[in-house]
C-alpha cells in the first residue's frame, strides 16, 4: 500500500530525513517511535503533502501512484488521512458543516453522490458514539474551546467518518489522560480492518499497550534505525532511545 524508498528531505536547507525506507501493507498497524527531533512529524507532514518541506531524493509510492506528485487534497481524496498532533481551531466554522463539507468533497472526488443532511447526521451520530463524543461538541465551532482530549477525539471521529485507506496518527496520544487515551485507542482499534493501514507516530510506548502494532520502527537522525515487533517498544520504554542512537551512530 505504501512504499517509501530512500526518502531524503530538508527544512530550510537542513536535512531532516536522511534516506528513510518503509513498507506498509493493507491491514497492518505500524508504530514509528523516536526521540524528539528525529523526523517523525516531518515524515507525517511530507506524506500528507504539507508545504515547507523540500524532498531532495527518494520516492513514495501509494497504492501504485507517485504520492509526492499529488497535492494535499488529492491525497485526502485517495484515502490518506492524517490525525494532527495539534488540531487547529477554525473560528466561526461549525463542526457539522466542516465534517459535511469534508466528507462530501471526498465523495465528489471519488464520483460518489453527496450525502444529504438527514443521512449525514445519522452517519455522524453513529461515528460519534464510537469515540464517545458528545453531540454538544458537534454543534460548536471546529475545535474551538475543545480540551486536548476532545480535539484528539474529534480527529478520530473524522477518521471514522472519512474511512481512509491509510491513516497516519501523529502523536495522537500526547496530552491525553488514561481515560481519554483508552477511548481514543478503542476508537482506533475499532477502525482496524484488512483494507486499512494505520501508522502510529508516537513518542511513548504507552499507546501501544492499547493498540497492538504489527511492526515497530525506531526513527533516529532521519532514518529508520531498527524495526521489530511490539517487544522493541517495551525495550525502548526500559532503556530509552539513547542506546539505539549510539548503536546506529557506531
Amino acid at each position, binding site marked *: 500500500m505504501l512504499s517509501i524508498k530512500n526518502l531524503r528531505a530538508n527544512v530550510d536547507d537542513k536535512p531532516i530525513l536522511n534516506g528513510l525506507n518503509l513498507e506498509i501493507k493493507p491491514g497492518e498497524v505500524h508504530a514509528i517511535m523516536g526521540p524528539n527531533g528525529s523526523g517523525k512529524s516531518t515524515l507525517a507532514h511530507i506524506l500528507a503533502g*504539507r508545504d515547507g518541506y523540500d524532498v531532495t531524493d527518494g520516492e513514495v509510492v501509494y497504492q501504485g501512484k507517485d504520492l509526492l506528485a499529488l497535492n494535499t*487534497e488529492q491525497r485526502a481524496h485517495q484515502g490518506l488521512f492524517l490525525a494532527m498532533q495539534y488540531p487547529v481551531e*477554525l473560528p466561526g*466554522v461549525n463542526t457539522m458543516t466542516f465534517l459535511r463539507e*469534508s466528507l462530501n468533497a471526498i465523495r465528489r*472526488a471519488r464520483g460518489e453522490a453527496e450525502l444529504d443532511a438527514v443521512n449525514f447526521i445519522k452517519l455522524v451520530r453513529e461515528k460519534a458514539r464510537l469515540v464517545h463524543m458528545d453531540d454538544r461538541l458537534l454543534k460548536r*465551532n471546529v475545535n474551538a474551546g475543545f480540551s486536548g482530549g476532545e480535539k484528539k477525539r474529534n480527529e478520530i471521529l473524522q477518521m471514522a467518518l*472519512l474511512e481512509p485507506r491509510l491513516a497516519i496518527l501523529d502523536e495522537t496520544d500526547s496530552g491525553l489522560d488514561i481515560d481519554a487515551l483508552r477511548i481514543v485507542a478503542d476508537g482506533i482499534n475499532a477502525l482496524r480492518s484488512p483494507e486499512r493501514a494505520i501508522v502510529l507516530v508516537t513518542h511513548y510506548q504507552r499507546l501501544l499497550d492499547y493498540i497492538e502494532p504489527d511492526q515497530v520502527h525506531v526513527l533516529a537522525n532521519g532514518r529508520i534505525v531498527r524495526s521489530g515487533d511490539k517487544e522493541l517498544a517495551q525495550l525502548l520504554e526500559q532503556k530509552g532511545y539513547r542506546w539505539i542512537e549510539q548503536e546506529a551512530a557506531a
Partner: protein
Amino acid sequence: MSAAPNSVNKLIQGGYEHGFVTAIESDTVPPGLNENVIRLISAKKNEPEWMRERRLKAYHHWLEMEDPAWAQIKHPPIDYQSISYYSAPRKKGDGPKSLDEVDPELLETYNKLGIPLEEQKALAGVAVDAVFDSVSVATTFKKELADAGVIFCSISEAIRDYPELVQQYLGSVVPYADNYFACLNSAVFSDGTFVYVPKGVRCPMELSTYFRINEAKTGQFERTLIIADEGSYVSYLEGCTAPMRDENQLHAAIVELVAMDDATIKYSTVQNWYPGDEQGRGGIYNFVTKRGDCRGDRSHISWTQVETGSAITWKYPSCILRGDDAVGEFYSVAVTKGRQQADTGTKMIHIGKNTRSTIVSKGISAGEGQNTYRGLVRMTPRAEHARNHTQCDSLLLGDRCGAHTFPYMVVRNPTARVEHEATTSKISEDQLFYCQQRGLAEEDAVSMIVNGFCKEVFNELPMEFAVEAQKLLNITLEGAVG
C-alpha cells in the same frame, strides 16, 4: 506566514457578475451643476416650490463647503462639473406607473440581476422599489402594503402625495448642512424610497430597494426616508449594482430612519457596486450618509451591511439614541480587494438613559485592498447607565493589503460603560493545511473560513439575503485567497 501565496494571486481576480449595460433610451441632462440644473431636476419631478427652495438652499451652502479629507482613502479630485445629475429611462406619458407600463428592457435588467419585478415571480414576502439611475421605475406589492396601512413608494411620489410627512421628517435626521456629500445630495437628489409604517403596525413583508446605475457619466443621488411610528416594525433591504466602466461614478446617497416609541427598524444592505478593475480603473465612489434616529423610548434601529463593491466606500450608518432604553446596532462586513478602499464604521450617540448599542465590524482585505473601521461611541452627560460593546475584527488575505482601526470614544457620564475588542488575523497555513488534508480545495477552505469569520453579521440578515450575501462573498473572493 499567512495564507499560501499562490492562491492569494488567484483570489484577487474574482469577476464582477453584474457588469452589463442595459441598452435603453435615456433622458439625461448634460453634465454640469448650477442653479438651473437644480431647477430642472425639480421641474422634471413636478415638485412643489418648498422642495425646490430646499434644494437651492442646500446647493448654495454646498458651494461654500470643502471636500472632506479626513478619511483613510485616496482618490483624484472629483470633477463635479463632469457629472450628469439626472438620467431617466425614457417613458411614454407621465401617468402613474403600473408594471405593465414598465419598459420590458428594464424588467429584463432586473430579472438578470435576480430581482424579478413581476409580482407572481417575486420572492414571496419581499416588496421591491426598483431605482434605475435617477428614477424609481417600479414598486411592487403596493396594494397589499396599503391594505396594512403601510406607505411604500418612491420619494418623488411621497413629495407629491404625502407632503406633510415629508416636510416633517425629510432632513430631520441628516440636515442639509451635515456634511459635504449629504449637502450635495440634498441639492440634487433624484429619487429613492419612502416608507411610513403607522402606529402599531408590523409591516407584513420585507421592503426593499434595488439601486441600479446604468448610464455613463452620471451620478446616483438617492434619498431614502423610513418612518416607523409608535410600536411598529419594519425590515428593509437594499441592494446595489452597476455596469463595468472605466470612469469613476459618484454615488452620494442619504438614508434617514426615524423610530418612535417602541418602534423597530431593521435596515440591511448588500452593496455590490462595480469595484473597478485590478489596476483600480473605474468603479463607484460610494459616499453615503446613513443615520437612524431612535427618537422614541425603547425604540430600536439595527443596521446590517455587507459591503463588497465600490472603488471607494465612505459610509458610517449611525444611531442617535435619543429615547430612553433605545437600542442601536451596527453589524458590518466590508471586503476590499484589488485596489478597493473602504473607510466605514458607525456612530452611536447615546443621549437617553439606559441606551444600549452593539457594534460588530468584520473587515476583510485582499490584494491591495485597504480596509478602515472608523467608529465613534459618544456617551452624553444625560446617558445614565448607557452601554456599548464594540467588536472589531480584521482578516488579512495576503501581504499587500491593509487593515486600519480608528475607534473614538467620548464618555461624559460616569455610569456609562463602553467596551471595545479588536483583533487582526490572517488565515493561517495550519488552518488551510487542516482543511485540505480533509479533502477541501484551497478556495473552498478559504471561503469556509471567511464565511465563518462573517457569521455573526450574516446571522443578522434576513434569510434570503444571508444566502445571497454568502454567495456574493464567495464570488468576490474567488481566486483571491490562499
